[in-house]
């Protein structure tokens, strides 16, 4: 992955849990432009562990003067967001990857309906700027618990197409109402908790929407779990994966070059052949099919873990 060192230009709390970070080129200069829904991977040297977390870009896709991301602090997480919140200050240098988009707008759509839950608002912030620039019809529905927790309120434009659903104020989001009566050619994009994504898919299926009109981004943080041992057959190495480390991070820490892109179980780039599996793979990805998961012949090391006697990978 092409990563470059960028300077932290701003750190701004948006809510008690969500902070905006801005990265700029230390030499001045312009960064590559991107498209709405793109993300970058931020490298965090955290006490000997190199973490790489993906964050959606929330700045204007056509503005190369810097990249903005919004990070929600997850205290129960593995430490990446805590690192960003507690260790990163203005002026620091961090390595940031080139933008990658796994949640792009389908520009053949006649209308775009965006549905966000909580911090899932982030990819839509840049999509909204793209939609406005292209003058395409859209509506955005943003569900959050309360005004105080809704970081998106600070990031979204004041437009009649932006609808707020605050459950704390008794206005719960209802996908059935949102999908009702949409014009032909509408596409729906959902980002947020898995339950929201599933609910939108379920309602759309009931109403007869074709699957190709539905898009969702379910980025996963790699789950924590019990430590385990993995044998990398091609490299001739036996490595330990610690509780707060992903298998991919352990492979990288051992000096083995493995492919990756989203680091969240969505893109399929890190798919690895399993040579032998005596035990159980805890598949957490959205990439492999159910039959692949059952067969235990492939693993997505960015999010999946293992329990048992022996796991040998073709890596």
């Amino acid at each position: 992955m092409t990563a470059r060192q960028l300077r932290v230009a701003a750190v701004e709390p948006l809510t008690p849990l969500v902070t905006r970070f801005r990265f700029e080129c230390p030499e001045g200069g312009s960064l590559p432009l991107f498209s709405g829904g793109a993300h970058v991977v931020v490298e965090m040297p955290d006490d000997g562990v190199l973490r790489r977390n993906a964050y959606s870009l929330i700045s204007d896709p056509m503005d190369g003067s810097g990249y903005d991301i919004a990070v929600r602090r997850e205290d129960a997480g593995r430490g990446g967001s805590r690192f960003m919140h507690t260790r990163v200050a203005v002026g620091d240098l961090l390595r940031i990857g080139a933008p990658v988009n796994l949640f792009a707008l389908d520009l053949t759509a006649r209308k775009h309906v965006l549905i966000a839950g909580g911090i899932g608002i982030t990819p839509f912030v840049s999509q909204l700027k793209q939609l406005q620039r292209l003058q395409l019809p859209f509506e955005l529905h943003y569900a959050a618990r309360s005004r105080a927790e809704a970081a998106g309120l600070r990031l979204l434009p004041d437009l009649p197409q932006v609808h707020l659903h605050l459950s704390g104020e008794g206005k719960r989001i209802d996908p059935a109402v949102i999908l009702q009566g949409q014009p032909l050619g509408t596409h729906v994009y959902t980002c947020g908790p898995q339950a929201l994504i599933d609910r939108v898919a379920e309602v759309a299926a009931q109403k007869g929407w074709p699957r190709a009109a539905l898009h969702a981004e379910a980025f996963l943080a790699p789950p924590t779990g019990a430590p385990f041992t993995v044998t990398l057959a091609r490299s001739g190495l036996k490595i330990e994966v610690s509780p707060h480390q992903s298998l991919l991070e352990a492979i990288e820490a051992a000096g083995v070059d493995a492919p990756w892109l989203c680091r969240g179980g969505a893109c399929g780039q890190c798919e690895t052949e399993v040579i032998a599996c005596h035990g159980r793979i805890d598949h957490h990805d959205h990439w492999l099919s159910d039959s692949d998961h059952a067969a235990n012949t492939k693993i997505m090391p960015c999010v999946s873990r293992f329990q048992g006697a022996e796991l040998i990978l073709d890596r």
Partner: protein
Amino acid sequence: MPRTEFTPSITTRPVYPGLSPVPGAAALMLADASGAEALIELALQDAALIAAAHVIYIPEGAPFGAALAALHPKHYHEGPSFSAILPRFRKALLDAHMGTRLYLAGSETLIGLAMAEALAAGLPVDAIQSDHRGSIARRMQCVHCKGITEGVTTDPFTCSHCGLTLFVRDHYSRRLAAFQGVCVDAETPGIVPELQEIKP
């Protein structure tokens, strides 16, 4: 009339897997004489689907109108030709929302023309099902003069606009609802392969 079984061809050649009921917000159905029985069979699978459907039928002299009307669709309309039912079909598409499913049955030309209208109206291609029955005559576009020759049953054939002798390709345009016809004797003027009847 039974479903047509086509021999496998290139990927742009349309395939017509048949109709099966899909739950949805609304159903729009269109059939000609050879496709009417496909809608009747669909109704046998799901009476509720047809009860809520808008059915448009082009009888072309066939006797299925009474049987279709007896299924008691929400709206039933007969018209003598595709161009006669087109204003109504366009209005139905204009009023349709996401979740509407389109069921097409009959000749390739009817399916193709109706699908092109629906796609232009914004209906997703995955919301369209089709069942080919009856004639396999093709609607051909001459790639040289762009004229459309309807009802082509032989290969090669003569372009009804520019008079070139055209080879019948399986290369199909969903936008034009037509197959591509290419000059068969461009490099050897006058030397034309023997005329063959088009096979499914």
